[in-house]
Each structure stands twice: as C-alpha cells, then as structure tokens.
C-alpha cells in the first residue's frame, strides 16, 4: 500500500501534466505574444529601406516599367492614377502590410487574424494544416496559409511562415508612386512574421513577392512597433472621401458638392446619358 500511494500521486501528477500540456497546446504559452496594436516603423514606401518613387528600384519587367513611367507622368500633372485606394478600394496584399494606420494581430491555434484599421482590411491566415483549396474566390487580401515554426528550439513557436495567393486587382505595391502588380493577379506573397529577438515590442515581417510584373522576386523587410496602451480609431474611407472615379478618369467632389478636375486641362465627364439641359 505504501508503494501504491506514490504511484498514485505520480500518476495524478502525470495526468495533470498531460492535461496542462494539452491546455497549453491551445493557449498563448505555445505562441508568441503578438496580440497587440502595431504601428508602422519606417516609411510608407513598399521597401522602407530605400527612398520612395524611382528610388524604390522595383525589379519591373520593361512592360510594367513603362506603365509605372506613365503613372509617374500622370501624377506629375496631379492625377491620382494608379492609386485605387483614393476611391476606397482596399490596398490588398502585399501593400496592406505597409500598415498606414494601425494593425491588430490575433493569434489562435487554427487562424491568425491580421486586421488593418486602414480600409478595414482583414487577413485570415489559416494555420490548421489545410491544403490549398481547388478553387479560391479572388480577394484583395488573398487566401493565406501559414505554419508556425520553433526556429530557436525552445519549445515555443516563434515564426509564422505565410504564403498568400488568390488575388483580385488592381493592386499596387504602394500608394506613391503606385508601383503596379500584374493584371493577371497571379501574385504569390511569402512572409515570415516574428518578434524581434532583442525587442519583443518590435514585430518583423520579411516579405517576398513573386509577380509577373517583376523580372525577379522582390523582397523587403518591414517592422512594426507594439503600442501597449492602444487608442483605436475607426477608419471610414467613404466618410468625407472627395475622390471619384468615372471610367479611368479621377475627379474630385468639391466641398460645396460640385465635380472638379484633378489635373490641369482635364475635360468634364461625359454626360451623354442625360437628356435634360443644365
């Protein structure tokens, strides 16, 4: 009997240990503490480590470099051509990860949610082991599958590796100048998300984009700062948005409710569908 007691206690301890492990397998002890408000570190260029505009040196194909040149020429005249967010179309991936305002990250075992205040974009990164679906409904955020890695071998996950496909467009890498992605939307975005090894209040995203507008994959490294006392604001693009897109032409709506040109010499919109004189 004396021998049974310690065995029983040990069995209990082992059972509890197993239970504790089971619980921990699904709780935050297994995952890095990424649930926070994150704000961008660095510029809003796609590659924050290079100057904006042509200084980005995107590895565009000649066809898409020509498109970018046209966009730059139009921008020089005041047009916002090439920047679809001016009409409240979301940035989409990979531009969403520039994080113009704030970003929520919520880690659950089966899904990591990345939610942008800007344009209210929501990314679901599935980490439940699913395979790529046979058919993906294209979205600006794309369809993301991830897996957690324990790179330093300490028994806890530290790095979320993500692949994103299944896009719709038009999308650009950035807002200014509006470096285009290919209109075939066959973009593949690969990411590694992890906390900085020496500063857990810094989140890093290594982003690699493969796209037919590029002559080679384009890799950038972005960083975000954790805000421990966050203030959340609603971003409502259509509230007070003065931009209007008619066909391929951008216009503005003035404060007094009239259509306005956005560039020098821009003609008025076509009114052929009206049968009444002004």
């Amino acid at each position, binding site marked *: 009997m004396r021998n049974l007691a310690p065995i029983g206690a040990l069995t209990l301890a082992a059972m509890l240990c197993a239970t504790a492990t089971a619980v921990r397998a699904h709780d935050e002890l297994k995952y890095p503490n990424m649930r926070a408000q994150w704000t961008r570190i660095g510029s809003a260029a796609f590659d924050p480590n290079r100057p904006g505009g042509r200084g980005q040196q995107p590895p565009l194909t000649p066809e898409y470099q020509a498109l970018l040149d046209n966009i730059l020429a139009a921008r020089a005249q005041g047009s916002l051509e090439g920047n679809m967010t001016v009409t409240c179309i979301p940035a989409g991936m990979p531009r969403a990860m520039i994080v113009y305002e704030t970003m929520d990250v919520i880690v659950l075992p089966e899904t990591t949610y990345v939610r942008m205040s800007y344009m*209210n974009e929501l990314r679901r990164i599935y980490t439940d082991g699913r395979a790529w679906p046979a058919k993906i409904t294209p979205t600006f*955020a794309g369809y993301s599958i991830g897996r957690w890695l324990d790179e330093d071998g300490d028994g806890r996950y530290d790095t979320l590796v993500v692949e994103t496909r299944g896009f719709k467009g038009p999308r650009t890498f950035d807002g200014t100048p509006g470096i285009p992605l290919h209109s075939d939307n066959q973009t593949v975005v690969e990411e590694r998300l992890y906390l900085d090894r020496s500063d857990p209040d810094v989140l890093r995203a290594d982003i690699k984009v493969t796209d037919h507008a590029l002559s080679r994959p384009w890799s950038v490294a972005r960083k975000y700062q954790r805000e421990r006392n966050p203030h959340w604001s609603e971003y409502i693009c259509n509230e007070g948005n003065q931009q209007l897109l008619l066909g391929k032409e951008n216009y503005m709506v003035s404060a007094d409710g009239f259509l*306005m040109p956005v560039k020098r010499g821009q003609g008025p919109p076509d009114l052929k569908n009206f049968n*009444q004189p002004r």
Partner: protein
Amino acid sequence: MVNRCIIGAATLAVALGVATVSGLAHDEAKYPNLKGAWVRADQGQTMPWDPSKPAGRGQQAPLTPEYQALYDTALARQAAGINVSSCLPPGMPRSMIAPEPMEIIVMPDTTYIMLTYMSEFRRIYTDGRKYTDEVEAAFSGFSVGTWQDTDGDGRFDTLVVETRGLKGPRTFDDSGIPLHKDNQTVIKERIYLDKSDPDLLHNEITTTDNALTRPWTVTRSYRRDRNVEWVEHLCADNNQYVTLGEEVYSIGGDGVLSPTRKDQPPPDLRYFTPSR
C-alpha cells in the same frame, strides 16, 4: 525517501493543478464556443430591424413624432426612386443585422465581432474598463461587456454588452428608420447560444435613443456555418452611386455618369473649362 516522493509528487501535483487551473482561466473551456461563421437566421428578402415584424411601417418603430416625420420623408423618397448609397458603415445597432456572415473571437479581455458586410469590426472589452466621455465617437461605438454564468454550471454562457460613443448618421435598417442625430444612443445586448441548439446564437438588443419614445427591444438570431468560405465585401468596388450636392447619380457599367430618375438634370460642371 518514500515520504519525500509522496510529498514531492503531491507538491508537483498541486503545482501542476494550479498551472492547469491558471491555464483554463484563460482558455476556451471557460467560455462558450462561438467559433465559426454566423449567418443571420432570418433569411427573408428584406432585412428589417425587428425580424419578427414586417419591414417598413410594419416595424411599428416607437419613433417620436419628429423622427416619425423624418422616416415618412425617407419612405417617400424611396418610393420616388431616390436611393442613397454612400458606403458608410451601418454602425450600431444595425450592424447586428449581419447581412453577410460574421465571425466572433472570444478572448478573456476582448470579444471581437468581425462583420463581413462593410468590413465592420467590433471590440467588446471584457477587461473591466469603463466607458468615458473621452471615447472617440465611432459608427461601431465603444462596447464594454461582462460575461455571466446564468445557469451556474461554472462556465460563462452570456455576454452582456453596453455600447455608447456613437457617431452618425445611422439608421436601424435599410428602410431608413432613423436614430437621433445627437448620437446619444445606448445599446444593450445579451448574446448567448441557444440552450438546446449550440449552432444557434441569440442576441437580445435593446436600443435607447432620443428618436424613440421608449427603448426598442428586438431579438436577432444567427445560425452557425462551420464550413464557410469567407469573402470580402467591398462596397466601393460595387458602389454605383455618387452624391453631388443634393442629387444622387449612378455610375453605369461603362463608367459614365447617369441619372437615377426620369428627367434628372445633369450635374453642374462649373469648375471645368468647356471642352467636351
């Protein structure tokens, strides 16, 4: 030695037990399982605020005379074919009609409600914080909640929520039942799973607003879809309307500005030099 083993094992067991309880205090065993997509249970063509009553005037909204007159005007404009689509989010409480699926994430300190329609995002704080007048107004408002164990089984089953700090304009539903422009709305919700069907979620919503003569309570329900394919709702991608001053115009599929009613005059192009 045996005694040390017993004491050691018992100490370990107690220590692990504490660790387990601590773990459970922050895991889903304490909270109802609200995972999955929730689709509004009322699948009618119209989406009135009170799903148990007919749409429009049939809602019998307890509006003050002033706001009933505003509603009558809105109904008359709609009857004349004048519709306004601005891509502004519905805001609370209308968000909870959930025209498209919603997802709920329950964390100990916050419950998130992610609505596909208009990409609305609600944070319901359950960390004990209080509403203050310094809260920045928002269409979704500022929500604080408390979890309750109403059946005493040791698990939370009901999320009680109060939402204030709203901005406008907001309406109860797409027929245009207005909320007061002072935005002093207070919304109280009780969110819980059906006792006999865990794939059915109920939300008892009481709205107090200065456009109403009394609080208006409705019960909305949502059915769980465990195999949802999430889609993006992009209002701006499909919005065919533009408001210029008091006039609403549509944008045709070819991107050309068009009238929304017979004999509507074209917009004033005073800021353009005549060239077309």
